[in-house]
């Protein structure tokens, strides 16, 4: 047997490396079809109940204190802002303006701001 011709081994070896590299890339592309946020993670991440609850407690505050301020009202407002920051990891702010008359019913304009680091929610609403 003549001695084996080992020329060109480098090229074939490089070819094999490239093929393995392509194999790896194809697997990544395959998995990327399912990567991304799943529906359940999206549902858990959006603070639907937190925002609804915050709106209701602010409306309760408006029902009790209106926009008159005072020490009791400011205490409650500080409670909401401090506990939101500490326990819910959310920056919350709200202001109540002077009441306006809308078709015979009196409404307070309320501005609500909520930011939990992922979701930002701003709303201006008239609360009757």
């Amino acid at each position, binding site marked *: 047997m003549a001695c084996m011709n080992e020329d060109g081994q480098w090229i074939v070896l490089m070819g094999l490396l490239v093929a393995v590299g392509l194999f790896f890339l194809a*697997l990544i592309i395959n998995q990327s079809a*399912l990567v991304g946020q799943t*529906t359940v993670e999206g549902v858990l991440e959006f603070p639907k*109940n937190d925002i609804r*609850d915050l709106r209701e407690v602010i409306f309760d505050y408006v029902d009790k204190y209106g926009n008159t301020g005072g020490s009791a009202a400011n205490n409650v407002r500080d*409670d*909401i802002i401090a*506990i939101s920051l500490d*326990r819910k990891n959310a920056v919350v702010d709200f202001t109540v303006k002077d009441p306006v008359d809308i078709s015979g019913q009196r409404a307070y304009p309320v501005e609500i701001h909520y930011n939990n680091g992922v979701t930002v929610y701003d709303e201006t609403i008239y609360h009757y």
Partner: protein
Amino acid sequence: MVNDSGQLYTMEGIAAGLVMLLTAYLILSTTSIYTPGDTHIPDMQLEQLGSDVLAMMDTPDSDGGENHLVNLINRSDRDGFNSTFLKYCNARTNGDPDTIHMSASVAYRDGDRIEEHQLVKPDETWTGRESAVRVTRWVQLDQQSTRGDPYGSRAQAVLVEVLLWRA
């Protein structure tokens, strides 16, 4: 002088290599598709259920009627809170009731500090259980001179935190 008479061997080798790689890839990829996110589905179900129960406890049955949640927190009634919450939580439309356990605490502000007062202690199923979920609800307490520790008598807003788990 380049002679291209060896190209056929190389092409054949590469084609064979590719066929083998493609086969190996197809086999491996059909078995390794995993679905992230399955782990969080029970968490979502529990969280929605817990939020619903707290919201319904916070809704009086009639206009101007008794608000169960506010009354239970005002009186710091741990047994009442426990039984009412679990009654709503474990009810099913048919078959046996569900087996959800809970513990509750109330966060309130005292000057510059946020304190936590344990309302319902966790029971003996605290270990060896599925993962727990936290749900919260704001409660407004009125000025009430007879309300003692720990909230004090001033009008304030407190946060009720409930941990639920299935055991």
